[in-house]
């Protein structure tokens, strides 16, 4: 057993919040400020996907590469939202809730997303999301866009859900190395 610590196994879903791009994250273990909006109940897996293939350089003197570089990297967050409210739909398209027109008893949301997507900050918080003990933790992304390529399916006995994908953009107002966001967990 010594080669594995029980708390290092992270199991369980987290809670997802959105806010205006650049909104600061809460202190670990404290509730997010009123600037953060709870992005509804999710269903299925919540994934953070990091990509950025390495390019290897070779020379004529040997078989194996002599240098590796990573010219670019991407971070994507993917999850599926259960509630098809127009507010959730607007965020998933990187529109804003301000795009919803309320008139009397109706709400209207246009489909056109426009050329420049609205940027959001994203926060994934877990009460028991620390690999070092029964402590909280979070993943924070200061700036990104929701890609908005959504397929909504209505059917006789299945729920229409919104599959959300959030693509991180560098926030160069953050400290060097932290432009794409970070994970923070409590350790004791």
């Amino acid at each position, binding site marked *: *057993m010594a*080669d*594995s610590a*029980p708390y290092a196994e992270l199991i369980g879903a987290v809670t997802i919040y959105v806010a205006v791009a650049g909104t600061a994250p809460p202190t670990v273990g404290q509730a997010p400020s009123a600037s953060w909006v709870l992005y509804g109940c999710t269903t299925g897996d919540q994934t953070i996907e990091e990509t950025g293939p390495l390019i290897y350089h070779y020379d004529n003197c040997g078989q194996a590469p002599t240098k590796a570089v990573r010219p670019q990297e991407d971070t994507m967050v993917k999850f599926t939202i259960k509630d098809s409210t127009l507010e959730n739909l607007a965020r998933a398209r990187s529109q804003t809730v301000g795009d919803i027109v309320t008139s009397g008893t109706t709400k209207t949301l246009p489909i056109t997303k426009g050329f420049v997507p609205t940027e959001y900050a994203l926060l994934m918080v877990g009460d*028991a999301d620390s690999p070092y003990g*029964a402590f909280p933790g979070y993943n924070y992304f200061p700036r990104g866009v929701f890609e908005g390529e959504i397929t909504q399916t209505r059917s006789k006995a299945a729920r229409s859900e919104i599959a959300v994908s959030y693509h991180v953009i560098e926030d160069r107002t953050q400290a060097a190395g932290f432009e794409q966001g970070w994970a923070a967990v409590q350790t004791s």
Partner: protein
Amino acid sequence: MATLDPLEIVIQWLRSDADLRGLVGDRIAVRHKYGMPDEASGPWPRSLAGLTVTPTAGATPLRDNCRPSRRIRVEVVSYGPDPETAEPPIRRVLALADGFTRSEVVLADGAVGLLYAVDPDDSPAADREPDLALDMLRVPFIVQAAAAAVA
């Protein structure tokens, strides 16, 4: 270090919930004790609700080479003299499983187990035990717990 039994951890976890104890008292065990000869004075009177947690097939074992945690499938069965009595305990267990996050569970010997997941694996099934004239509601759960004590 001694290996903890995930079944014991999940039973202790259920016993630690005050609302569930309010419904079934101490009657949470692997086997029920209804219909014992001295039932009137026995621990599980047929007029009261009780809960059993029994191992059952269906969970794919974890393939970690060091086996730091165990995954089992258990069937939680709620008993009562009528459906109205049998239903609240299983509802409470389902409510506890909703939004469950990793939890520490203090066991009878003082060791602390770590429960990773308690997830319903089927919809509730109603049944009736004809010999004891008891109504039953059963729900299987997938349970995962750490093999080693965390404290």
